[in-house]
């Protein structure tokens, strides 16, 4: 565990010694503030003219602060994560490869898994710092409109934002093991994350297929694999074990893949 801590603190320091951490933290906070403000303005506009979501002349759903400001905000921030996370993780292994410092790590008496874990935790820590200020937006809403707001979807939506960031970080870390070029690692990270984020969009066009007598529900499979779908479900305010398990599995899977990738790089 000491080596995990050594690598964790080295990586964290290197985020804060370079402009990376400051750019990421300010950039994300500024953008989320702007998105919140836009959401608020839009809400004021639509509530001035209409009572709710209409089909024909019938109002089928009334406007609510959580459904029409905060949940869309969380959703937008989850898309922003697709760019921010690989920007944070791209250097983790690519830089070590470029500078050949990977040779120091791989000839030290430490497990590869500890290297992977230390680096991952540093990225996850920075992401946690990045997402904490987001809490001010639901706080503002709850402060001014406390009793009218259903806090369940907000809490779970916020949790989903953290879980998505951690899962995407594991993917970004894996992308970083594939190249010694940080730009390449960044783009690979974005592509990998986008696939997982949006694979659910393919569900409606897929069907159940029969494969050697097995019933394979392709549409359900892609939906269950999609990060976006699990995210959306959490924002309805229902806590399902399967959603939590999904994020945990993603993290474990991509950390294991990173470990394997670093190990196999040893073979030359």
């Amino acid at each position, binding site marked *: 565990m*000491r080596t995990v801590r*050594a690598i964790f603190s080295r990586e964290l320091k290197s985020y804060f010694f370079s402009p990376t951490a400051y750019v990421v933290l300010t950039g994300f906070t500024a953008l989320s503030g702007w998105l919140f403000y836009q959401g608020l303005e839009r809400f004021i506009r639509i509530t001035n003219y209409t009572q709710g979501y209409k089909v024909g002349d019938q109002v089928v759903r009334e406007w609510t602060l959580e459904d029409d400001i905060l949940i869309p905000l969380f959703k937008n921030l989850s898309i922003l994560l697709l760019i921010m996370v690989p920007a944070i993780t791209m250097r983790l292994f690519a830089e070590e490869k470029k500078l*050949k410092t990977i*040779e*120091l790590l791989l*000839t*030290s*008496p430490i*497990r590869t898994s500890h290297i992977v874990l230390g680096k991952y935790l540093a990225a996850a820590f920075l992401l946690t710092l990045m997402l904490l200020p987001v809490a001010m937006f639901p706080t503002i809403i709850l402060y001014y409109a406390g009793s009218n707001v259903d806090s369940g979807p907000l809490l779970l939506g916020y949790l989903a934002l953290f879980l998505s960031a951690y899962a995407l970080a594991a993917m970004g870390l894996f992308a970083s093991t594939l190249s010694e070029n940080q730009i390449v690692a960044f783009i690979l990270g974005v592509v990998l994350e986008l696939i997982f984020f949006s694979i659910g969009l393919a569900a409606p066009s897929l069907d159940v297929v029969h494969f050697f007598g097995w019933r394979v529900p392709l549409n359900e499979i892609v939906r269950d694999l999609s990060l976006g779908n699990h995210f959306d479900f959490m924002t309805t305010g229902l806590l399902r074990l399967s959603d939590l398990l999904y994020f945990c599995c993603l993290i474990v899977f991509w950390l294991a893949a990173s470990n394997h990738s670093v190990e196999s790089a040893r*073979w030359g």
Partner: protein
Amino acid sequence: MIEIEHLTKYYGEILAVQDLNFRVAEGEIVGFLGPNGSGKTTTMRIITGYMPASRGRVRVAGHDVAEDPRAVQRLIGYMPENPPLYHDLTVKSYLDYVARLKGLPEKEIPEHRDRVIERCGLTEMRDRSIGKLSKGYRQRTGLAQALIHNPPVLILDEPTIGLDPKQIAEVRTMIRNLAGSHTIILSTHILHEVTLTCQRAIIIHRGEIRGDDTVANLTREGDLEHAFLRLVEGEPAAAVSGEGGQA
């Protein structure tokens, strides 16, 4: 101390080293001599557990590197050809980090760090960031990094490459001062270096050992350059003499 048996390494289809066999006794300084691309770095990387061998066995102080890499890595200080330095760290904080990676107990770190800083002549540079150091000081930091956990075995890959003559002389003196307390394998393509620092030379060419003898024996019938050329005979002379010319 180091036993190498039938060591063979392929990179895909390409044969890098073929059936190497040698032993290095405790306290010996062995020069690993050969032209660029002869398999020196590959062999060193296998000994340090950086990459696995395709066939054969490497043992350091009785530990097999394939079975127990961490036991071997605790005994080895390794300086790769490009010293693995983080340019954003100061010499001091870099050495502290390496000490933690090598598993030194936290309260012993300052003592070990100060010892190698002094030994490698880095006292005045300890609070400088590595990115601002000259090539010579970077090389010293690379050597300090290899020595931090006071390992009985040192593997130095081209320790004097890219240095000016004064710096080369300093690094050689440093290596000679380590003799006796450490078993050292150092690689070089400079023949002269071996006569100055080593007791024994292993001549490697195209992944095979062509000669393995004491420097005294190798230089008995003329200088080492002739012995080297004789041992790699039949190969295009231009490449070999080109390397020798740098001495």
